[in-house]
């Protein structure tokens, strides 16, 4: 038996174990409605129902078998009281809902905010607590507050282009850009705007907290059919043709560094320092990263990055001289 066929069986069984209580709760629900609700083709749904004729309790006489009737196109399931309630939530179902709800709760001015908060409290308690009542699943989604999220949401809903003033950490410059917004994306405790940047003609990701102003324009936005937010998993998408910087980080820094930066390759040296490879667009970005690490970093290469680091350090130093 292959993994794939046993996955298929598991999905089908899970669906049937949900289909039965649903049909019991809604006697006379139409086959078409069930097919839409469960997002399966009508034929597959009919096959699921047909299967139940052979199922029931030991004895398997007329009083033991599940009674299924859908000849009229309307479904009635009887004699299956033990399947009248659904199976409890699987961990991934509960955790995905709880974490998704927490992410949603970090959005500003939402009509559903109050209902969502109540739902999360109930779900959190159901996930389990300590003897003192503290939840054992603790999801915090403290996305940066930003007044522009709402404006961006409006533009997205209306399929309209936005003009943003954006501060780029790598260049240290504030620039004005026209962006076709495709989605807002919450990851790593921040909100990002993903869309097409007219200045570069590329698909880009913008940190919402670095947007100084956002204004909705009149232009209509077409979102490419093949746009997939999943490609931004971990809030990073490497572009082709980027240069590679290398440096070493201290044993202490290794405890968190690789969780937060898109490291391409890493090896530990005999003294515990770790050699890191990282892709970059502008040398100034690596220079800022290196300076933020201070003496936890050494052996910075290539030359353009080392030079940018010295230049940036000298510039900032003027403030402290």
């Amino acid at each position, binding site marked *: 038996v292959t993994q794939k066929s*046993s996955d298929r*069986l598991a999905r089908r069984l899970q669906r049937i174990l949900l289909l039965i209580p*649903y049909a019991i709760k*809604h006697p006379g629900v139409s086959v078409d409605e069930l097919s*839409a609700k469960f*997002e399966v083709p009508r034929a597959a749904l009919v096959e699921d129902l047909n299967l139940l004729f052979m*199922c*029931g*309790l*030991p004895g398997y006489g007329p009083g033991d078998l599940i009674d299924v009737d859908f000849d009229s196109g309307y479904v009635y399931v009887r004699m299956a009281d*033990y399947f009248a*309630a659904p*199976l409890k*939530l*699987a*961990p991934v*179902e*509960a*955790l995905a*809902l709880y974490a*998704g709800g*927490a992410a*949603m709760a970090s959005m500003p001015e939402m009509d*559903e905010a109050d*209902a*969502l908060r109540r739902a999360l409290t*109930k*779900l959190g308690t*159901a*996930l389990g607590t300590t*003897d*003192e009542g*503290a939840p*054992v699943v*603790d*999801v915090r989604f403290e996305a940066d*507050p*930003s007044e522009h999220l709402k404006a961006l*949401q409006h533009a997205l809903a209306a399929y309209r282009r936005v003009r943003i003033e954006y501060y780029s*950490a790598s260049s*240290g410059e504030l620039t004005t850009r026209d962006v076709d917004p495709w*989605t807002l994306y*919450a*990851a*790593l405790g921040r909100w990002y705007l993903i869309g097409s940047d007219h200045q570069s003609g590329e698909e880009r990701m913008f940190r919402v907290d*670095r947007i*100084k102003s956002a204004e909705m324009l009149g232009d209509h936005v077409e979102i490419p059919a093949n746009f997939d937010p*999943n490609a931004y*998993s971990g809030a990073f998408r490497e572009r082709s043709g980027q240069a590679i910087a290398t440096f070493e980080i201290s044993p202490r820094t*290794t*405890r968190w*560094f*690789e*969780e937060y930066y898109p490291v391409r390759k890493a090896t530990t040296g005999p003294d515990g320092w770790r050699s890191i490879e990282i892709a970059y667009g502008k040398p100034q970005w690596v220079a800022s990263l290196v*300076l*933020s690490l*201070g003496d936890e970093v050494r052996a910075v290469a290539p030359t353009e990055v080392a030079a940018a680091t010295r230049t940036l*350090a000298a510039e900032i130093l003027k*403030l*402290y001289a």
Partner: protein
Amino acid sequence: MRRIERLINLIAALLEAETPMTAEAIRKRIHGYETDNHEAFRRTFERDKADLKTMGIPLETRQLSTFGDDPPGYIIPKSSYYLPELDLEPDELAALRIAAGAVLGVEEEAGTGVMKLSMGAIDETSSAARLAWNADVAASQPLLGPLYAAVAERVPITFDYQPAGTDEPATRRVEPYALVHRKGHWYLVGRDDRSGETRTFKVARIAGAVKRNEGSYEIPPGFSTEGHVLTPTGGDNDDVVARIRFDKTLRWWPEQNLAGAAATDGPDGSYEVEMPVASLDALVAFAVWWGPKVEILEPPEARERMRQRLTDAAR
């Protein structure tokens, strides 16, 4: 009889059984298992049991007598099979429905969750309107299920763990206290057998499978997840209050993002704001990312650390 029919019959019979059924009773009484070939039955039943457990169906094995020689019985306790009543209001379900449509990678699982909770009380299918946002909650990580089960049931576990910066995983025995999500990552917090202390394990760095051990434990009174998860800023506790000057081209940033913080106008249109930070290092790292447009004013130790760092780096 098809396998799926046999599995449904097994679930139905074990849910309705008043006392656990032995394998022999299952072979004789449950439709789909009847065979005179004992070895074939044993193989079939073992596989079915394993698959049901993988699917999250709580099939339990019970010793029927104190004498070890007696065969065990099997049952699916109603209390662990059925979804408990959560009393969610329709508006609460509708809010969860929206959240379920926006989680990346686990939309389907979240959608099934909403369906189970609402059972038609709201329109569970995703609305035609496009959601304008997505969230990466990293819930597709396969170990979350077994880790959550261990936390919920207070089952000690063993796993291989490879902390960042090491090349080899090492085996850890842990009594898990909580599952924590911070800044896009999942962590397990629990008592580490080796050190006897409460430790934090990043779920993505657990290698291979999670093994459940014998026994149980209690989460110590007063346990809190607070302070157990490290981030680049050092931790959850903000111990240092800094005073930072943003130049006039950047004053919008604290105005927008640090609203409510104590602030005054500085020279040349700049803006000076007080900000709590986790440590001096975190403060210096934060300021450096803004380049020469942001200056640390206080505390003086942070200025000194910055001067030292930049002097070294500018050489």
